[in-house]
């Protein structure tokens, strides 16, 4: 490790297991995906491990496969705000981050909901802003849901702009509570916004919350998404798995900050990561292999194939060779999830070639092409690898995605966190009370004054 730079602190967050095949429901240790106790367990474990935040993803339409509701993976999730507010009651320091779509929500309501979460949690709220141009999901909303792709980030940016204006709209001395003079609050000014997406005039209903602005996370990887993140976000939630890809992305994102007048440390890069631990490297590898087979059962293997082939392949043997028929070209066979194949014929050919060369069955092939276990090893090895990513600027930390609900983080907290602490890369106690404190982010009102100072000099 180079000694010219001070050691960076690793940031860790806990992702509640999601609704895809990486979440293993068939394991005997897998409990409810929806009971509140499951959320309490994961959040308290993350807080015991001194994590920065708990992270809750969102989906607004059940996925479909072959025209019917997909039934092989975990299904069913709660409302983001309700769960995060309820978790604020069973944790004290842990940040509470939730995905909320900026396409199917209105800025005034979102501003009120996030400010409420920030007040009620004492400054621990974070918003992962996502967008959608998906008419399929839109069928659940009165807007009818279709937003041109190019408008997605315009709407997202305007949504955030309006929310921030509302969060800032009570001047610092508005809340007076002077009993003798009979003045509770001075005049609350009206916030006006007229843009391409919104025409709004409103007086906000809450004083500034403990963090000023809840922390903003962002996850889009397109060029539009990266610009939006560089201009707006406090942290980026990415999926760049390898060290090299991580460093390239990290450098790209940090490089985009300057044009928005932002400093290098004002944006944290936090990739999602999975992990498997063992007492020895060999044991960890064996557990990882077992988990991959749990994640890709026979029916799931066929379903993955059907996504590329665009047709019903239920007659094929998951333990047999890949189909010799060609894909139908129907890329809409699975809806409500990220598509794996932009060019199904090319993918099918590549998969056939790989299966033939390595003598893989359908299930083995799917396991090979979908496996995303990133950190596999002993606790010391995993700690070292995580630290390497952070110290060499491939990441500022990780959002850990356990494969089991809700106990999937227990072993990491018990065994890897102490290793990181021993290396001097991870906190041994929370230094502050708010999520901004944990992430080392400035209060937004300080940020504004810093910029003014920078411009003046």
């Amino acid at each position, binding site marked *: 490790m180079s000694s010219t730079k001070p050691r960076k602190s690793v940031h860790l967050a806990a992702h509640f297991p999601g609704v895809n095949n990486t979440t293993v*429901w*068939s394991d005997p240790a897998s409990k409810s995906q*929806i*009971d*509140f106790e499951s959320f309490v367990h994961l959040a308290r474990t993350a807080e015991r491990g001194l994590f920065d935040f708990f992270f809750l993803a969102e*989906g607004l*339409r*059940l996925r479909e496969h072959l025209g*019917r*509701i*997909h*039934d*092989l993976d975990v*299904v*069913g*999730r*709660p*409302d983001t*705000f*309700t*769960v995060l*507010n*309820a978790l*604020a*009651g*069973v944790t004290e320091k842990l940040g509470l981050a939730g995905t909320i779509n900026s396409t*199917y*929500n*209105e800025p*005034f*309501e979102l501003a*009120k*909901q996030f400010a*409420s979460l920030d*007040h*009620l*949690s004492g400054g621990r709220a974070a918003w992962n802003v996502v967008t959608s141009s998906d008419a399929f999901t839109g*069928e*659940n*909303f*009165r807007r*009818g849901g279709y937003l041109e792709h190019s408008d997605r980030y315009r709407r997202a940016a305007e949504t955030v702009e309006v929310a921030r204006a509302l969060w800032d709209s009570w001047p610092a001395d508005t*809340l007076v509570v002077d*009993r003798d003079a*009979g*003045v*509770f*609050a*001075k*005049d*609350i000014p009206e916030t006006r916004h007229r843009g391409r997406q*919104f025409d*709004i*005039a*409103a*007086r906000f*209903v*809450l004083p500034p919350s403990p963090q000023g602005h809840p922390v903003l996370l962002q996850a889009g990887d397109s060029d539009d998404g990266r610009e939006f993140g560089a201009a707006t976000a406090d942290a980026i939630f990415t999926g760049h798995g390898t060290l090299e890809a991580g460093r390239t992305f990290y450098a790209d994102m940090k490089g985009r900050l300057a044009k928005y007048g932002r400093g290098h440390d004002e944006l944290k890069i936090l990739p999602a990561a999975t992990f498997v631990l063992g007492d020895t490297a060999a044991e960890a590898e064996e557990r990882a292999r077992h988990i991959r087979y749990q994640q890709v059962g026979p*029916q*799931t293997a066929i379903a993955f194939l059907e996504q590329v082939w665009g047709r019903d392949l239920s007659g094929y043997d998951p333990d047999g060779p890949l189909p010799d028929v060609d894909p139908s070209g129907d890329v809409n066979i699975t809806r409500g999830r990220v598509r794996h194949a932009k060019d199904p014929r090319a993918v099918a050919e590549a998969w056939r070639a790989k299966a033939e060369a390595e003598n893989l069955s359908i299930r083995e092939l799917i396991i090979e092409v979908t496996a995303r276990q990133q950190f596999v090893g002993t606790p010391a090895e995993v700690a070292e690898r995580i630290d390497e990513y952070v110290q060499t600027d491939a990441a500022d930390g990780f959002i850990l995605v356990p494969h089991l609900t809700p106990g999937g983080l227990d072993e990491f907290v018990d065994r890897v966190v102490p290793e990181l602490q021993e290396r001097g890369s991870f906190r041994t106690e929370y230094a502050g009370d708010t999520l901004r404190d944990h992430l080392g982010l400035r209060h937004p009102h300080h940020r504004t004054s810093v910029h003014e100072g920078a411009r003046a000099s």
Partner: protein
Amino acid sequence: MPDSDFFLAVELAGTGAHPASWRRRDSRAEDLFTARYWVDAITAVEKAGADAVFLPDSFGLQPGGAATAQGRLDAVAIAARAAAATHRIGLLPQAPVTHTEPFHLSKAIASLDFATLGRAGWEVTVSEGAEQAKAFGRKSPQEPAALWHEADEAVEVVTRLWDSWEDDAEIRDLPTGRFIDREKLHYIDYAGDYFSVKGPSITPRSPQGQPIVAVRADEGPSIQVAVRRADLIRIAPPDLDAAHARRAALRSALLSADRDPDAVRVLIDIDVHLAGTAERAYEELAELDRWSASGTAPRSGAPAATGSVLRHIGTGDSLTELLAAVSDSGAADGVVLRPLAVEATLRHLATAPPAPATTLRERLDLPRPPSRYATIQEGTPS
């Protein structure tokens, strides 16, 4: 407190229903935007043996200008924040439907039901006026008839979504690799004048199946919506005779709407101020009224500190007597106490022995309804 099946709820409106309540020394007005304030108040109501707490909400600021306590936290958020700190009390946040999405509302209340193990409800309200319409910028202000027609559709969408997963949809069937039985998840395919919503919900059916729906029905088109949709109907009559008449009218309207009047509870609002003695309670009320009169004059539209609603000024004991009298009178199935000054009244509410933890539905003696879609499916081969 009267026992039996008489329903006792408390509405917590900021520091109190009286616009000057925040000026009391004990109001904790500085804490109004903290979790501590709300958790303390809600747990105090629970300790008093009440069945439920109502939490008002709106997208607009309270009228009355600088002299009133302005600002409010999201009511569903407050209820969720109090979930883990409470064990018996029903939580009924208000949520307006005029500018919001029923899909979001449906999962928010269902998730509150999961977090409270079946103590969630929802008081349906609408957002009147230009101020809130401009805060969203999506549509013009609507007339009451249109607002409540939209609300009627919103409740239909929300309750269909609550039923869109049958109770036993999650099967975790290892041999077939299926986590759910997709035959037990249902598209709601709702298409009305204001909404078209496909469904199903992303949230499974919650502990109560259908969380409790409350609607205020004093006048106008809200009455029909309450009669069609509500488990709890709130009214604010000027006296017990009026309460009697309104409850009788509601029960006959329920019959005409093909609903069982015994499956709907009518609750009357009673404004309350309690102190150690009745004299003290009256003195304190007079002080509140003096503050209101001397403060910055409330703008038009501000709620009157006094008015044509039932009120009780006195002690905890005299309140207990009043509630017994209301219960005996048959004028209502329960009451919603509205403390004029929250801290003062909660301090003087009698505490009751802890009631057994049940769902809000069980407390109301209302059956847990089966999913409407499960009923349709009965008898069809799978």
